[in-house]
């Protein structure tokens, strides 16, 4: 990098300076696109010629004369630039493509291309202070390089923020860019701010230990800092050293023989680096051959200083090209006529180097090490550094590519825990079967029906005659036995057809007993369906069919007033023939609903103290009546099969009744067992988890 205004494009029209990326002059408005025109590259697909760049590169690759020699050849003594130029022109061994290029350059007026024309115009417009010539600039520049001015050499387009803070280290072109486009500068700075700055912290003389320490520090820092290509020590120097590539190619062989280099070491350059570098020679075609010769001369002077420097120079060309692409100011240098020649040499040499890289993998292994050279070391130290840097500082040290981020470490620990649990014995997850409602109900219904049907088909089993009755039933029997002939008994039927079988089996024996004792019956029904139910009951009890059965609308509510005041029933027409409840010795309530019985006992009984109430009900309703029996409001009640002494009844299947009860018991136990099993499985799963 130079500090003069060579990085800026000069307008071919007005000769004033413009930014490198400007396509139009900011002063006169004239087009500056021509400055970026690459010689030999067609401007449009229609302009493609036979001597296009890909063809030239292909010829270079196929040219056996440009293949890398297998043996290490001694470093030739570099002749003066003029001699080299003449020798190259007159050499019979020149490749065809180069001969064509030079013939074209001699034959055609504008063979050097539009870019060179632009640069010539620019040179003409430049002031006299630039007229010192390219050679003088090169000498001055090389002197600066050899003075190991780290501050001047380490500045690049992508500098670190702390580097940019020092205005002395910032090139003029960058300062102008920052002045014009501060935001862009910030963005650029932000992108590269993770790059380490070794310029001020590096020891001036690099030893193996110092380089090892440097590498450890680099590994300890952020991985991205290592991943990014490190800044080169001297951009301008590398630009000038581009023509030295022919010599460096010859020096590649000793480097390839170094056993310490491995591919894994310092491989922070993407694999497509070569692809990025490929178009560079095309841009560099604008360099003039004279510039290349001068560069070769300077390079030969460097090589005379030691093999270490030669090795460093050998590795520099590709980073140079990379910097040409990356550094904005490098485009300005391309406008220099001397540098255009230099780039032309690079065009000649770069395909050869690519061919070598493709043929020898070891050659490509050296490329990553070039980024390590960009650590801000002085050129001389860089020449010594590569071997040390390319070697792993510590065999046990972790390569930068293998450094784990925190998130990666967490994932790794999770994976490790999963692997640890893989071998453990865990309880297998058992499928919890949820029986469908339809299937379960169908199974229950079938089981119950099958049991009942089988028990019925076997035949009715006689109920044991000695089955003990309940106490209320015994009290009811005793009360009935106290009745004498012509006593009146009111029988109230208040049940539905669904429970008629159970109640009739209980009530019929009682009615039969009453009828046998000469008791007079009065039958009332409180429900419309009671009429035909009473008929059935009377038939079962063996009573005459002409027995009076009356419907009592409103049930016991219809009798409350008569119970309160017997005079009412005597003097008024009533809905029933029951005029006075006090004439009855016993009221026998046959009901399947305990509330109706309770209504009789609570609404009627208090008004008639001498009236006795008894009940025949279902076994389900019996518990509700037990308090009334215990309090004496009921003289007795019969409920259930055992109280009815129905064992003698042929219509009743005692076996079916017991089978039904047994099946219900089994189902209930199954429900409890299934729940217990489900809970056990759940506990086992929770324990396993």
């Amino acid at each position, binding site marked *: 990098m130079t500090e003069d205004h060579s990085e800026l494009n000069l307008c071919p029209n007005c000769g004033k300076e413009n930014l490198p990326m400007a396509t139009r002059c900011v002063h006169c408005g004239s087009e500056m696109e021509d400055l970026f025109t690459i010689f030999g590259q067609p401007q449009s697909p229609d302009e493609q010629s036979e001597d296009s760049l890909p063809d030239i590169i292909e010829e270079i690759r196929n040219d056996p004369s440009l293949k890398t020699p297998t043996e290490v050849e001694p470093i030739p003594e570099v002749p003066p630039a003029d001699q080299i130029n003449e020798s190259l022109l007159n050499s019979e061994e020149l490749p065809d493509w180069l001969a064509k290029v030079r013939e074209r350059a001699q034959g055609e007026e504008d063979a050097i291309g539009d870019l060179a024309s632009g640069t010539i115009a620019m040179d003409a417009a430049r002031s006299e202070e630039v007229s010192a010539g390219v050679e003088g600039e090169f000498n001055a520049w090389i002197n600066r390089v050899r003075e190991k001015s780290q501050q001047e050499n380490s500045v690049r387009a992508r500098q670190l923020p702390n580097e940019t803070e020092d205005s002395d280290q910032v090139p003029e072109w960058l300062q102008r860019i920052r002045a014009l486009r501060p935001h862009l500068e910030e963005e650029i700075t932000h992108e590269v701010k993770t790059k380490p700055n070794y310029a001020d912290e590096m020891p001036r003389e690099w030893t193996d230990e110092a380089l090892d320490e440097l590498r450890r520090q680099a590994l300890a820092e952020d991985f991205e800092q290592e991943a990014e290509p490190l800044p080169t020590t001297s951009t301008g120097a590398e630009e000038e050293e581009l023509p030295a590539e022919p010599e460096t190619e010859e020096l590649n062989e000793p480097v390839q023989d170094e056993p310490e280099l491995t591919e894994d070491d310092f491989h922070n350059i993407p694999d497509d680096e070569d692809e990025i570098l490929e178009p560079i020679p095309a841009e560099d075609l604008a360099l003039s051959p004279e510039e290349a010769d001068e560069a070769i001369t300077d390079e030969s002077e460097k090589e005379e200083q030691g093999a270490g420097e030669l090795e460093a120079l050998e590795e520099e060309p590709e980073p140079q090209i990379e910097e040409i692409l990356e550094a904005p100011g490098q485009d300005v240098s391309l406008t220099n006529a001397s540098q255009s020649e230099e780039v032309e040499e690079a065009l000649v040499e770069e395909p050869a180097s690519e061919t070598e890289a493709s043929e020898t993998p070891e050659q490509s292994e050296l490329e990553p090490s070039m980024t390590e050279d960009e650590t801000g070391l002085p050129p001389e130290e860089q020449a010594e550094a590569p071997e040390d840097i390319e070697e792993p500082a510590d065999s046990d040290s972790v390569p930068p590519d293998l450094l784990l981020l925190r998130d990666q470490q967490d994932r790794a620990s999770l994976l490790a825990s999963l692997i640890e649990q893989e071998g453990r014995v865990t309880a297998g997850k058992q499928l919890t079967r949820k029986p469908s409602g339809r299937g*379960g*109900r169908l199974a*229950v*219904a079938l089981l*119950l029906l099958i049991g009942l049907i089988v028990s019925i088909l076997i035949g009715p089993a006689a109920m*044991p005659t000695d*089955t*003990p009755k*309940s106490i209320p039933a015994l009290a009811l029997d005793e009360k009935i036995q106290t009745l004498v002939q012509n006593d009146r008994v009111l029988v109230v039927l208040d049940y*539905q*057809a*669904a*429970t*008629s*079988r159970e109640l009739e089996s209980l009530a019929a024996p009682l009615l039969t007993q009453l009828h046998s004792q000469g008791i007079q019956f009065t039958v009332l029904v409180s429900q*419309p*369906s009671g*009429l*035909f*139910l009473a*008929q059935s009951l009377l038939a079962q009890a063996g009573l005459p*069919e002409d027995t009076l059965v009356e419907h009592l*609308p*409103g049930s016991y*509510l*219809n009798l*409350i*007033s*008569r119970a*309160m*005041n017997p*005079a*009412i029933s005597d003097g*008024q027409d009533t809905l029933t023939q029951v005029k006075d409840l006090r004439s009855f010795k016993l009221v026998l309530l046959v009901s399947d609903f305990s509330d109706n019985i*309770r209504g009789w006992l609570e609404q009627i009984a208090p*008004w008639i103290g001498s009236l006795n109430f008894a009940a025949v009900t279902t076994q389900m309703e*019996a*518990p*509700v*009546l*037990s*308090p009334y029996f*215990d309090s004496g409001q009921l003289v007795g009640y019969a409920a259930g099969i*055992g109280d009815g002494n129905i064992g003698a009844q042929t219509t009743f299947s005692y076996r079916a009744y*017991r089978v*039904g*009860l*047994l*099946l*219900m*018991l089994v*189902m*209930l*136990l*199954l*429900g409890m067992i*299934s*729940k217990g099993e*489900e*809970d056990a499985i759940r506990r086992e799963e929770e324990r396993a988890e």
Partner: protein
Amino acid sequence: MKRPIPLIVGALSGLIVLAAMFIVPQGGGILAIVLNWVIIVAGAALLVAIASLVLTHVRFIAKGKKGFLLSLVLVISFITTLALGLLLGVDRPSFLKFVGAIIRPIETALLGLVALVMMSAAMKIFRERGWSSLTVSFGVSAIIFLILGLGFPQNLNIPVLNEVIRFVEGLPMIGARGLLIGIGIGLLLMAFRVLFGMEGFGND
């Protein structure tokens, strides 16, 4: 929004009946009149309900609504029963046998289905409700009384066991007493709410 007139009528009716219960025997006449009104109104309401039911199903049939065949069966059965009752009389034994022969098996079958549903519910109650005091007490009591219902323990004729069985069979009376007391208190509070217009009649 409660309508005032039904509210006043309901409250006055309740107060009259309650007063008549305390004015014995003079209050018996008033109570008889009021209760007869109640019975007649209830009968009229039953007729209205029957008419509404029949008309609803007739509309279903007319519109061909889904399940109208069942509505058709209902209407036909109602008309047939009504016609036979009017022609033959409700006290005729043949008519009573005819009606009883239809209603008795139907209702008995429905009661059998209730038994199946209850048995299925007894199985599912543990899975649905889990182990709680309610389900455990239900299961234990059901098992005990089903075993007692089978009659096996009673047939053993063991005096001590018979005493235990007698004690166990008396346990339901405790629950029944509590149930009856709760019912009585609830009815009393409901009566007060009705009398003071806080419940029952007049709601829109």
